[in-house]
């Protein structure tokens, strides 16, 4: 009898792990994939989990929405970075798990999700006409199903340092600067002039890194890496336009104008506080970049925005909200995504946080176009970006391999410009290897 008791003690200890497994089993709630009612009942208590990343500026909007819809509770599952969000979403897809009711996705990895559009609900009910064609196209699969509701966008302008321009004997007026930088050839010619000026001689550069410029130039191509009809990788072909961009950017003439600071690195972030030495005069500037500049160097009062992008208007970045189709509350989630991307809300976010809208109606909204930015010398940033937005005609084709190719290309530029571990030809060879390994 005693022995049995002891034995059961031992058993208890030995299998406590299993017991824990068993009891915990019943309490779990994640990963449920049962699709209940598909209509949003206004009285039904609903908890919606939404995963964004970086800063979507939704905090106040969540509160507002919950006030408007007392039955809805919004859980803010923000991820720190786009990479984390991408890993989370793709883990969910690859294991067939639904962890969020709404997930945000960056345009750079949207193509990977579009390839798995059956994982997501059709948001056609929101109406693709809310966005310009190029934006809606980024979230539409081959069968015409809209899976993403556009949030922000990144129409590009040029940010520039008035003090450095002045030192270099260049004009400092926004429109005059814009007139000076109409094409990439003009941009680099002005850069050469700048480098030979007192400003350049005192250690200022023309731009931060060629990798940063590449982003802008690649976004102006029709099909930088892949063939739009077949999806085949074309970036290594003989007449590849991306290679032409690469050759231009890695030429000695252009490299001399670089500050050799890789974008987003710690030294880059810190260098914004430099006065002349180690500083740079121009920065490719989507609206979200203005926030970064202002945040990195709050005391630097000389930045301004010129309404131009060399080589023609383009867009850099922007995100979407997607609703996994097997979520518990697809309709309620769709309603929320619809509301969050509504022009009225997009305008509010821009005014409060500076994330530029992607809904056409929001970009012409009076509160948007009226916005000025004291940090940028009182520049009418609302008006400038609204015009830049209207001028965007198309966006490059992004296929399933866009993200890794773009990443590898960025590394190729870094090797030449920042790390200086390779010359242009060697670095391109390594890029070729990287790309070939993708298939």
């Amino acid at each position: 009898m005693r022995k049995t008791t002891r034995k059961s003690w031992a058993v208890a200890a030995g299998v406590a792990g299993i017991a824990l497994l068993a009891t915990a089993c019943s309490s779990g709630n994640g990963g449920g994939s049962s699709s209940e009612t598909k209509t949003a009942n206004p009285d039904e208590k609903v908890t919606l989990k939404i995963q964004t990343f970086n800063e979507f500026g939704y905090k106040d909007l969540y509160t507002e929405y919950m006030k408007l819809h007392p039955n809805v509770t919004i859980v803010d599952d923000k991820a720190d970075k786009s990479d984390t969000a991408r890993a989370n979403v793709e883990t969910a897809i690859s294991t067939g798990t639904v962890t969020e009711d709404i997930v945000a996705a960056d345009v750079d990895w949207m193509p990977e999700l579009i390839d798995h559009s059956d994982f997501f609900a059709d948001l056609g009910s929101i109406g693709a006409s809310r966005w310009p064609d190029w934006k809606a196209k980024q979230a539409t699969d081959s069968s015409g199903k809209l899976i993403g509701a556009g949030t922000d966008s990144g129409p590009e302008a040029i940010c520039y340092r008035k003090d450095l321009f002045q030192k270099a004997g260049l004009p400092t007026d926004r429109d005059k600067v814009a007139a000076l930088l109409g094409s990439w050839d003009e941009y680099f010619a002005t850069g050469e002039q700048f480098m030979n000026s007192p400003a350049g001689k005192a250690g200022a550069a023309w731009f931060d890194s060629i990798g940063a410029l590449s982003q802008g130039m690649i976004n102006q191509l029709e099909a930088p890496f892949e063939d739009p009809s077949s999806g085949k990788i074309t970036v290594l072909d003989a007449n590849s336009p991306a290679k032409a961009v690469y050759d231009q950017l890695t030429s000695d003439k252009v490299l001399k104008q670089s500050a050799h600071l890789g974008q987003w690195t710690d030294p880059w972030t810190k260098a914004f506080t430099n006065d002349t030495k180690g500083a740079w005069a121009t920065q490719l500037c989507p609206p979200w970049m203005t926030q970064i500049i202002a945040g990195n160097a709050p005391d630097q009062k000389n930045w301004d925005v010129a309404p131009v992008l060399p080589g023609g208007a383009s867009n850099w970045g922007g995100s979407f909200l997607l609703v996994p189709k097997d979520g518990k509350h697809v309709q309620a989630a769709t309603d929320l995504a619809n509301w969050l991307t509504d022009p009225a809300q997009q305008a509010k976010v821009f005014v409060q946080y500076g994330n530029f809208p992607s809904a056409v109606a929001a970009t012409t909204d009076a509160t948007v176009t009226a916005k000025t930015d004291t940090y940028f010398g009182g520049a009418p940033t609302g008006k400038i970006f609204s015009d830049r937005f209207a001028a965007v005609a198309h966006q490059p084709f992004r296929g399933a391999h866009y993200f890794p190719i773009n990443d590898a290309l960025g590394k190729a530029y870094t090797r030449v410009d920042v790390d200086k571990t390779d010359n242009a030809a060697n670095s391109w060879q390594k890029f070729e290897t990287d790309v070939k390994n993708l298939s």
Partner: protein
Amino acid sequence: MSAPSVPAIEQMAGKGAARAAARKRHIEGGSRRPGWITYVLLAAVLVVSFYPLYYTFLLSSSTSQNIARHPIPSLIPEGHFFDNIKRVFDSVDFWGATWNSVVVATITSVSVVLFSTLAGFAFAKLRFRGRGPLLIFVIATTAVPTQLGVIPLFLVMKNLHWIDTLQAVIVPGLVTAFGVFWMTQYLESALPYELIEAARVDGASMFRTFWNIALPAARPAATMLGLFTFVQSWTNFFWPSIVLRSSHATLPVALSLLQATYFKDLSLIMAGVVLSIIPLLVLFIIAGRQLVAGIMGGAVMG
């Protein structure tokens, strides 16, 4: 040498007694106090240990602007520490995340200590078929790269419906190969057979022997294992960041959100680092004295 030598005691009374004698000697023996050079060396070690922490504190009491301007901050903190702390509290559910971390770390360390001691006792002192190969197997499992397991482990968690719950983080860490290896290693030498045999002769069951003899004997190593596991669990980032969503995350995952801005505010991020260290430091200061005393009280792995 009037007292019998330690080996002699060992011959007569077994290792436990020998150890006790050795310890007694250690205390009584009163070997010479080391000279000042030793203290200078130790002080240097502590400066190296503490400066990075102090540096973190300096950054957290500064602004990102000043950090960028002065690579080497002055040793006197600037006055922005509490502003930055407040901003951390505004952007992160600090208390919720801390609570989650406490739950995870406590359950994990208690469980690891208990199960590892149990297994270590069996591996070190009990005879059973397949013991050698099984122990090797346990150690070999630590060689499995964790990155490899992410997708399949996520699948397991999905099927258990544990995604985004604390169990998903707790359960995989309930007993670790490291712990088993550690306790086996320790009990091998620290637990004399005589004690086990004595208990068995008295009619104690295996489990009672474990509970009354092995567990107390294992205390020093168990304390260390408990601390290591607690810290390990507290600082764990990779797997929790994958399986937990930020609304009920552990502390490191929640604090990573401080980087979720377009521009990186180092003073804010460093304030988060300081906040994540403080709870452990407090625990360490409260428990540390006893811990160090406990560790040194018993011998570990002679």
